[in-house]
């Protein structure tokens, strides 16, 4: 018995406690969701920074003596002198098919109250898009479901198409009709060999939450939600969220974002 105890004791003695090494700085000033941080000598551009209370920030401005960061989330709890840590991770979001049918914010966090997003893979938000040579040329049409548009304007998969017009002339309606039409086509062709479903990503920037909710309602009614991801940065969200919101839009055309969300 004593040998057993000795054995256990020697095992315990052999255990080493982990010492966490981190790069820290202190908040020098914070206002309107922008923090200036002293220290943080090892911070990288676009790296996520951890503030007290589980709030994250994004290092955007690396200067000789300080780092400028924007806060993602609630910045009211952060004050001067608070400790900030680097995380060693670039700003990343969960990706994959688990996002389909969900409403998420710019960080990929669910805001529809349906529980956590089912995704194991994360992907950096800022990434170089695949070059022109790597991309397949546009070969497959996209049907909006609106006959005059389909008849007059050729739209292909992997192509950008801008919808411009005065306010209240139906720009959003065209987009939503297209999303619904794609869902209809996807449903009709489900399971057919060689068919690649077209998933839609609707990004709402600076809109009223009621408007976003209305769009979600229309898509749910039409049964298009299982093929759609909604990214919402509404008017009541912080300026940071709205600043980051155009990123998916810009990336969509280049393919990188589409892949990022759908990989």
């Amino acid at each position, binding site marked *: 018995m004593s040998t057993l105890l000795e054995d256990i004791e020697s095992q315990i003695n052999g255990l080493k*406690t*982990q*010492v*966490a*090494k*981190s*790069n*820290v*700085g202190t908040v020098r000033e914070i206002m309107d969701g922008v923090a200036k941080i*002293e*220290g*943080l*000598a*090892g911070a990288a551009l676009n790296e996520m920074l951890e503030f007290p209370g*589980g709030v994250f920030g994004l290092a955007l401005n690396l200067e*000789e*003596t300080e780092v400028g960061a924007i806060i993602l989330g609630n910045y009211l709890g952060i004050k001067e002198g608070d400790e900030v840590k680097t995380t060693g991770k670039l700003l990343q979001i969960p990706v994959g098919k688990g996002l389909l049918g969900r409403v998420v914010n710019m960080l990929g966090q669910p805001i529809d109250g349906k529980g956590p997003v089912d995704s194991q893979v994360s992907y950096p938000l800022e990434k170089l898009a695949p070059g022109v040579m790597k991309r397949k040329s546009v070969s497959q049409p996209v049907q909006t479901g609106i006959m005059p548009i389909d008849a007059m304007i050729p739209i292909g998969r992997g192509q950008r198409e801008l919808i411009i017009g005065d306010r209240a002339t139906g720009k959003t309606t065209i987009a939503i009709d297209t999303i619904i039409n794609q869902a209809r086509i996807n449903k009709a062709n489900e399971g057919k060999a060689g068919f690649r479903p077209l998933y839609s990503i609707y990004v709402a920037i600076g809109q009223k939450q009621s408007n976003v909710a209305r769009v979600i309602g229309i898509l749910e009614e039409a049964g298009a939600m299982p093929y759609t991801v909604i990214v919402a940065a509404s008017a009541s969200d912080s300026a940071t969220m709205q600043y980051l919101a155009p990123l998916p839009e810009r990336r969509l055309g280049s393919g990188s974002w589409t892949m990022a969300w759908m990989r």
Partner: protein
Amino acid sequence: MKINREARNMAKKLYNSCLVGGLIDEDRTKKTVAYLVEKKPRNYFPILNRMKKLISLKLAESAAVVESAAPLGAEEQVLSGKIRERFGSHVKIRFVQKPELLGGLRITVGSQVWDGSIRYRLNTLENSF
């Protein structure tokens, strides 16, 4: 404080001239500051402020703070030796007692922190739930 590019560049040049072998030379720094104060060249005030900032950051880089829950006693010498061995003999080490750490050590050198305190582990545990 707002500073123009000319003053910032000048401050950087003067700061660089105060370094000997990558470390701040006290004598040179004092002479530079005295000269600036005496001659009062253009933008001398922002230059002095900027130099102060750069020097304070450089000094912070070579300052180590060892925080512990209880007095370390004779172990302070061993620890000082190990820190100096790793970061150079110029490092100034300060020992601070912080009962809220509960146990273990927290060593800060510049902006690097090695946290092996019980408080840190408890916080990590709390955040993991």
